[in-house]
């Protein structure tokens, strides 16, 4: 093992280009992550032809660096513009943007960056030390377990929101309902498409969240008569102090562990990891009502989880040759074209490749800290421009980005429609978090439940009695009850009786920042 690391290091030292590639790919990745619609997958796919210029190890290092960078990059635009640059950053916008609006953009970016690096390093360490056993553990997760995991995440909507349980449930169910549009995943029959071939692909998650967040925000800003809303001024990225860091240590640890494991599950990646971690952060918090109003843990949880999931999703790729996420699926394709046969023997046949990637990912995560501070600063320059220019630019960027993902004009229409939906939800006080949790986790729950039922010959009891699935489902029921109880208590307790918008937490309101 140690010998393999020495060999890999010797290889990298002998090919200094590897270090250049890692640095360049992190920058490229952050840029792709930060621009709405240009996701990490696009960033990796675009670089595949360039990997032909290098040997397979150098090529894979290039792709892994992009993956690491893009997963953090999405948080920059999520925090500064309420526009998740990539789907895995959707949760980050929920608390990052309110924090930025409070005048603490720099702090929010700092938390995102530090959490990303911690999660990323954690995930890489798990990858280095535990890849084969983790891959075996992931194989124990069948459809029933995926279903239970998704349900556990979905039940957190009972704890989210401040005041109205009903509104949270309505928003969550709306998300679940929207997720059913398109071809039935098992039978291939069209559902709720109303004869439109554009709706056959369903409501894409990326167009929907970009609409709900970015476009709705632009609409919101335009509709505000108060022109002093340009509160996001303090953007010099500040890493959290040790005290602030220690305050989120449990969240960081829990989210990193969850992220690494969920990343290792084939077919689900950083986005699911971020959502489940956010759900868990809300559930375990002593003040869940603050989530969505600019809670630091609401940034730390998804950001540490999605970066941990990067290392996690490399586990099945390198240990078994099965991609753990959509981005690693593209990497797998790239490896194959290079004549590398991914599979359990990869570690023995190509130790230098595997161990170089371990080292490279570690370096990429550390470099991300350095580059991330700079990158956020440059992005923040945009904020100096008047919103009359920035707003329309965001809309145009979102439209191009959404189209770029799948070259599908219908996605632009979906994005625009969901802008209106998001605007309406916010106006009426329905929690956006519940809506997008339903939208993201709903399809996973649906498909895996139906796969599970085929496997058990339509026997629900068999699913409930599987040890992991049963336990997770039991926890879901308990947390649902506890969440509803907590909401009930908060509503009838002292603060904010019947109010849909309680005062934000007692944060320091900076001069120039808006009060509520």
């Amino acid at each position, binding site marked *: 093992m140690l010998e393999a690391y020495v060999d890999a290091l010797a290889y990298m030292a002998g090919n200094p280009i590897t270090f250049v590639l890692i640095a360049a790919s992190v920058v490229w990745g952050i840029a792709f992550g930060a621009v709405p619609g240009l996701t990490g997958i696009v960033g990796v796919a675009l670089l595949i032809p360039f990997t032909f210029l290098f040997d397979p190890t150098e090529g894979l290092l290039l792709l892994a660096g992009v993956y690491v960078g893009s997963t953090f990059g999405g948080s920059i635009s999520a925090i500064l513009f309420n526009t998740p640059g990539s789907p895995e950053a959707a949760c980050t916008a929920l608390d990052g943007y309110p924090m930025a609006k409070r005048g603490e953009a720099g702090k929010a970016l700092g938390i995102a960056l530090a959490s990303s690096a911690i999660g990323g390093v954690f995930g890489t360490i798990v990858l280095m030390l535990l890849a084969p056993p983790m891959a075996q553990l992931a194989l124990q997760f069948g459809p029933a377990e995926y279903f239970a995991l998704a349900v556990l995440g979905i039940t957190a909507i009972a704890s989210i929101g401040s005041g109205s349980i009903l509104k949270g449930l309505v928003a969550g169910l709306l998300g679940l309902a929207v997720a059913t549009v398109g071809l039935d995943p098992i039978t*291939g029959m069209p559902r709720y498409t109303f004869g439109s071939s554009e709706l056959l692909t*369903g409501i894409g998650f990326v167009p929907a969240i970009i609409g709900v967040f970015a476009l709705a925000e632009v609409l919101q800003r335009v509709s505000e008569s108060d022109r002093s809303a340009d509160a996001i001024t303090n953007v010099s990225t500040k890493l959290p102090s040790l005290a602030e860091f220690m305050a989120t240590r449990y969240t960081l640890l829990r989210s990193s562990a969850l992220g690494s494991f969920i990343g290792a599950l084939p077919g689900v990646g950083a986005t699911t990891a971020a959502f489940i971690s956010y759900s868990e952060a809300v559930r375990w918090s002593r003040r869940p009502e603050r989530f969505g109003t600019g809670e630091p843990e609401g940034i730390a949880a998804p950001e540490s989880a999605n970066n941990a999931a990067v290392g996690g999703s490399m586990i*099945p790729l390198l240990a078994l040759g*099965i991609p753990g996420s959509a981005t690693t699926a593209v990497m797998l394709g790239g490896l194959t074209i290079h004549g590398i046969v991914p599979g359990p*023997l990869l570690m023995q046949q190509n130790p230098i490749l595997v161990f170089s990637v371990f080292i490279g990912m570690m370096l990429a995560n550390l470099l991300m800290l350095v580059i991330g501070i700079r990158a956020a600063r440059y992005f923040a320059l945009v904020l100096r421009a008047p919103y009359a220019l920035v707003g329309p630019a965001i809309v145009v960027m979102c439209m191009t980005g959404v189209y770029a993902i799948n070259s599908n004009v219908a996605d632009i229409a979906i994005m625009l429609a969901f802008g209106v939906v998001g605007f309406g939800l916010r106006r009426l006080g329905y929690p956006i978090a519940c809506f997008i949790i339903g939208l993201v986790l709903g399809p996973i729950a649906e498909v895996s439940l139906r796969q599970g039922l085929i496997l058990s010959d339509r026997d629900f009891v068999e699913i409930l009695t599987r040890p992991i699935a049963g336990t997770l489902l039991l926890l879901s029921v308990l947390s649902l009850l506890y969440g509803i109880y907590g909401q009930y208590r908060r509503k009838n307790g002292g603060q904010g009786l019947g109010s849909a918008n309680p005062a934000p937490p007692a944060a320091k309101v900076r001069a120039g920042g808006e009060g509520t």
Partner: protein
Amino acid sequence: MLNAIKAAGLAATGIAALAVGAAQAQDYPSSPIEVIHEYGPGGGTDRFIRAIGEPFETITGAALVPISIQGGGGIPAYANFQQRPADGYTLLAISPDQVINHALGRIDMGELMPLARVQYDQGLFLVPADSPFETIEELIEAAKADPGSLKVGITGSAGFDDTVIGLWNLETGAELTSVPFGSAEMVSNTLGGQVDLMHEEYGPARGLIESGDLRPLVVFSEERLPVLPDVPTAVELGFDVTLGRWRALAMHDTADPAQAAVLFDAIAEAAQTESYKKFEEDSALQYRSVVLGPEEFQAFIDKEIAVYTDVLEQLGYVQ
């Protein structure tokens, strides 16, 4: 009279178009050609376009750029292709999935000009290392004893894999229940023992076959694969199941035949290059993959349409 004028006009236009086409064919292709496909980036079709695209670019100077438009059973990808001009700079990657969509009445293959069939893959049934089934006969016996109890992992729903399993069930009577997954989950659920077996081509499963984690039981081809000499074909067992996934390129039916000829020559040459041959061998694609030109390929497609329509009718998908 009017008709005669019309005919003359059409003929003149046709000649003019041919003349222009011939002139254009001189410097065609002069910019990258986009290849639309309905599968994910990194999948078999995406890899096929990239692998053939590399020598193709060396030969013609123009790159082949895969454009992935996923989901919706391939209809959005097809619709996108149809909306683009027939100027020779957009191709469609086609496979049995288009034939199935044609048989189901969702698209019309007559709107396509077949260009070249490059790959012709062969599927396998694979079981995990700890499976009780050592041979295909044992599996058939178990499936016949309790029809539908064995679960086979497939990719996609109501597509190529489903049709192969349907044909297998009809031919053998050893009924299997198919469970659609994404390709990664299909493998993990097979290795983890959630399903009893899976249907996959040799290339993507090669790493796990070589490590012994997956055991191939039967191959759907006319002849045994030289890399897997001990694995019988379904034909040997008396079952006519040879449906394989082929990967090919098509143009608009109104495309310029001169351009088609240029493209076909370049693709046929690219398929003979060393880099592509190496790729083919790595994926065990070399056994049935004879490059078919436009005419032979059209005949092949007509035959495939007949076969798939028949199977889908027997399965009750087509009335």
